[in-house]
């Protein structure tokens, strides 16, 4: 217990928290992010209907404009989409799906990346060469391209209907697998720097096994670069999910993420129903911008010399 309180006081008195409190951009970005996450968590209580439940949708309510324009109805503050769903509810539920996919995909990336990065950094030699060449090749082909191709082939193979049930799992796995090199490279670079230090020699001398040294001694010292890329990666994963959904390879219209909402509204902007695409887009951009600003700030504060510029 004292251990925990000691850590807590260390955190509260730390430089990072001090600088955080003094930075208006970081504070605003953090507040927006918290608001979005809360809105996503509380979606069932905040929204007036469940957009995933066909019984609650009335097709007669389709394409009602937002409440402040002529023809708007008070029951649908941001208007309705083509199927008669309340757009605000659909956005809240969509936010939920987008954030869940983003976070879980990053967890897959992180797990793969940490294991591969630790192993190739610590062992070096042939193992290292193999994984790093693989990472080079995979990055050169662009992760979005790989994700598009993998999902397209999977969709064509299992048929559209079965695919819709599997979409959320497939998106997490594909975005997760496509981006592991980012983590593996970062971890490997830190491991190479840490490996030379004396505490690692000491751990080896007292006879600890390689996995213990990697997990208990080296890994905790690579946490700050990990934190920085994780913020950027969550933003990227959410963008990738939106892009894949926009192409029809992601979440189905019956269970829309922000990307599929934008996609379903796209053909109606020509007929004047601008709100179906606009509001989910604003939500998506604000969310990603908040995460990216926070990531930028973290990078400046922790300064792990990951990126230039």
């Amino acid at each position: 217990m004292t251990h925990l309180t000691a850590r807590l006081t260390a955190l509260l008195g730390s430089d990072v928290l001090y600088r955080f409190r003094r930075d208006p951009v970081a504070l605003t970005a953090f507040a927006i992010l918290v608001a979005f996450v809360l809105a996503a968590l509380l979606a069932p209580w905040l929204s007036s209907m469940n957009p995933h439940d066909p019984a609650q949708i009335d097709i007669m309510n389709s394409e009602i404009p937002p409440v402040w324009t002529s023809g708007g109805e008070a029951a649908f503050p941001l208007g309705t989409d083509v199927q008669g769903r309340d757009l605000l509810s659909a956005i809240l539920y969509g936010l939920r799906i987008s954030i869940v996919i983003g976070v879980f995909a990053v967890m897959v990336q992180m797990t793969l990346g940490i294991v591969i990065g630790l192993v190739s950094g610590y062992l070096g030699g042939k193992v290292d060469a193999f994984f790093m060449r693989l990472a080079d090749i995979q990055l050169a082909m662009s992760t979005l391209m790989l994700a598009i191709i993998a999902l397209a082939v999977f969709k064509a193979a299992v048929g559209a209907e079965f695919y819709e049930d599997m979409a959320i799992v497939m998106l997490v796995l594909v975005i997760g697998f496509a981006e592991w090199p980012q983590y593996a490279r970062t971890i490997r670079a830190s491991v190479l720097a840490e490996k030379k230090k004396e505490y690692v020699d000491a751990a080896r001398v007292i006879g600890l096994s390689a996995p213990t040294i990697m997990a208990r001694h080296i890994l905790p010292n690579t946490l700050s670069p990990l934190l920085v890329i994780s913020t950027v990666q969550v933003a990227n994963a959410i963008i990738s999910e939106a892009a894949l959904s926009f192409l029809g390879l992601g979440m189905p219209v019956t269970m829309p993420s922000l990307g599929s909402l934008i996609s379903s509204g796209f053909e109606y902007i020509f007929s004047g129903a601008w709100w179906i695409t606009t509001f989910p887009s604003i939500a998506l951009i604000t969310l990603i911008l908040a995460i990216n600003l926070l990531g930028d700030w973290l990078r400046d504060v922790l300064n792990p010399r990951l990126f230039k510029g």
Partner: protein
Amino acid sequence: MAIVAFLIKRLLQAVLVMFVISLIGFSIQDNLGDPLRELVGQAVSEAEREALRDRMGLNDPFLEQYWRFLGNAVQGDLGVSYHFKRPALDVIADKFPATVDLVIGAAIIIVLVSVPLGCWCAIQPRSWLSQAAMGASIVGISIPVFLTAIFLIYLFSVNLGWLPSFGRGESLVEIVPGWKTGFLTGEGISHLVLPSIALSSIFLPLFIRLIRSEMMEVLEQDYIRYAWAKGLAPRRVWFLHAFKNTLLPVITVGGVQIGLMLAYTILTETVFQWPGLGFMFIEAVTRVDTPLIIAYIIVVGLIFVVTNTVVDLIYTLVNPTVRLVGAPS
């Protein structure tokens, strides 16, 4: 001698990657639908089917079938598209110029905007324009490319009616047989404007930041300090001495971006219904047009591998300080 070893190693790796891609392409062909049903339909008896299967070699061992696939692929035969009823490679050759137009259009915008702006940000980091550019670049990174495209359409096509929102237009000029470009007529260019801006929007923040940071690094170097000490004119120092040396890393990164560019053409082309490779691929996926899907994967894989190998080779040739992979250091 090291350079020759490096060359051979790099080429071997390229061949290996293409081999893996072809293996993936082949296993897709094996698993997506039944080629027999596409050919003969449902109304053929089981015994006839089996006979046909034998004749087509579908019962041969995996390796034998793969070898045949590879042999055909090397000779430029990747099967016949179910939808277009034409060889898949011919369809791709038809769509290719449209995508090249789009990529060239985006590249022109990227170079014209990011080079001056990146240099300015490095030379005058405190000016309002630099601050604005750096702020805008983080907003730019946060907007997905398809949203940029949608809002360009909404603003310039739906609301203002200035520019067309889809397709390449009618007046394309054939520069060589089978290769039409939209760059030579007003109508063609008007169709190119929005898609090119949309495609470039995702790369602009990246390149502005890259040029800025590379140039800032170069400006700190001793030889630049020496150039100042000699009393050279600021322009000469910035653009002759400093800029020349920022170009190399920028070109390498730019070359590697070609993969990302192709991925984003899929999104841009889908929004603008641009009759290029990306739009064709998404349509092929919807129609489960297996030969076309495979052909696309193999052609795009080839483009990746070739550009990456060439960029790597150029980089090593131009920059002798790079340690060759596999060479004794």
